[in-house]
């Protein structure tokens, strides 16, 4: 890392020549662009934040203002009094459960794909990765009927299972790239020291692949946290809804209660945002090795 950082400025961050005056022009243009980009990409979350902090009477005031005055937590208390908390917990259980199942299945699969050679291995890997190609909306109706026949509607289990199936291929793809970059001699050394192969995987390979595992876990969490169509089909009672479904129902039932909807949106954004800010560096380097290994 430190060596590349030393090389990089010479490699040329900006297009164009390196004469001082032009460089300054580029720099200012770049900063303007960055600010513009920040505005464009945060516009609607900023708007939701502002709305969620307004007093109920100010929300629909025209012309609208960006700064809430006075600041009011009315919308938040209204949202947090209702079933939203329950939905939030449901989403948390489902998302964490999905991450656990996906990792439990895809770590061995990626390990098996990079550490063994056996007949049919390519075909096996091919089928796993091909799972990415099945569109999920096309499976909603079949899964709905299967789940109701098995009495699994309205359970965490069915959501976790279905989400896991969706995210396993991408996770295997990323982890496989990462595992490839870890020398096989390391697990062999651990096995010579008396580790079983399974333990060598858990204690040697997985810790070394932490950025890759973190990247996969994050992507899976975000997906499960935000998924809508399967969640709406596979849950029936209000108490088993997840956050996106609940917010959608807010829109349908309250119609114009923008305060509550905005507050709910902001609260739903918080866990993912925090996770990303904490793990961002690992995330990008994990993704790097994943795509590198796959080339």
């Amino acid at each position: 890392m430190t060596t590349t950082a030393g090389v990089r400025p010479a490699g040329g961050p900006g297009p164009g020549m390196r004469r001082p005056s032009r460089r300054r022009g580029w720099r200012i243009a770049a900063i303007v662009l960055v600010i513009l980009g920040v505005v464009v990409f945060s516009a609607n979350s900023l708007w939701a934040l502002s709305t969620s902090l307004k007093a109920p009477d100010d929300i629909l005031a025209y012309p609208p203002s960006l700064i809430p005055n006075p600041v009011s937590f009315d919308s938040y208390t209204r949202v947090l009094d209702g079933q939203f908390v329950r939905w939030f917990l449901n989403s948390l259980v489902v998302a964490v459960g999905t991450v656990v199942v996906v990792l439990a299945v895809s770590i061995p699969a990626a390990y098996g794909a990079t550490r063994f050679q056996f007949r049919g291995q390519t075909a096996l890997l091919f089928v796993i990765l091909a799972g990415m190609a099945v569109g999920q909306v096309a499976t909603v109706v079949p899964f709905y009927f299967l789940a109701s026949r098995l009495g699994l509607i309205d359970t965490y289990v069915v959501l976790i299972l279905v989400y896991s199936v969706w995210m396993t291929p991408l996770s295997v793809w990323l982890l496989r790239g990462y595992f490839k970059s870890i020398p096989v001699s390391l697990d062999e050394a651990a096995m010579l020291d008396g580790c079983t192969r399974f333990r060598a995987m858990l204690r040697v390979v997985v810790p070394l692949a932490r950025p890759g595992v973190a990247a996969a876990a994050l992507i899976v969490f975000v997906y499960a946290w935000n998924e809508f169509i399967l969640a709406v089909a596979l849950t029936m009672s209000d108490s088993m809804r997840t956050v996106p479904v609940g917010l959608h129902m807010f829109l349908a039932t309250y119609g114009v209660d923008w305060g509550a909807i905005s507050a709910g949106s902001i609260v739903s954004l918080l866990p993912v945002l925090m996770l990303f800010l904490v793990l961002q560096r690992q995330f990008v380097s994990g993704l790097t090795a994943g795509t590198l290994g796959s080339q």
Partner: protein
Amino acid sequence: MTTSVTPTLSSTDDQSRPPGTRAWRARRRRSTGWLYMAPAFLLVLAVTAYPLYFAARYSVFRMRMWEPVEFVGLDNYVHLLTEPRFLSNLVASAVYVFAGVVGCAGIGLGLALALRSGSRWQRLLRTFILIPWITSEVVVAITWRWLLNPQYGPLTAVFERFGLPDFPNVFASETSALVALTLVNVWRSLAFPMLMFLAALQAVPKQTEEAAQVDGAGYWQRVRYVLVPAIMPVIVVTVIVLTINYFNMVVLVLDLTGGGPTGATEILGLRLYREAFEYFSVDTAATLTMVMLLINFVLAIFYFRALRRQAGGEA
């Protein structure tokens, strides 16, 4: 599912205690590899096989409330494929997916190239680009609907304030609604290609680019002849994942335009959702599922080709 994990554990334990000959161990080793990959394989196989079986079976029956179930062969397909609404769904989907993927991958590549040196400002912008991507589609749709509201939306107020002409109701005309929907979707998903390409670009050896520079290649030439070819495999996978993802979207459209005006933005995913969960017509939903699975498989053929190159390259 959990039962298939357990044998993996025990058999590896056996294998690491070396009582047998080399041949014994080699055989053991082969079967262990299978066991490591089996759970993921079975999960994925179940998800591909069952829906296909279900949809195929239900799509050849006619099921109406209060009427006996009747075998009708391919009638449901004929019915669906000849109705004007389905054609309009197909057109909307095609425009939405094609324009969206081209826009998203193109802008994503541009952003990845522009933001790859990772200075403080660039990292800041990268973080902000992530926000829409980690926001649920429901929230994206709800907030944009409000931002673009022609009566009391903030953009309307800004237009008025600066004396610009009235802010148009983008959801009123068929073309502008489809354009707005596509743009919001591109805006939402931009982080995915950007991150994939950024990661891939970081993996391109510095020397390759420097060598091209020494040979006199300018910036655009380096991008075109060195960088883009180097990350082509990742570009292909990203484009295909985006395509399949866009093709199967529902809720962004449902909450942003509701498929309107006059069905102009009713893409196939939304139609399927409605047939199943608003009209409760199982046979049409199953037929649509079948059609969508087929289209998915056609899209996937390209994906399979790209993957085979990857999966085969290592064996």
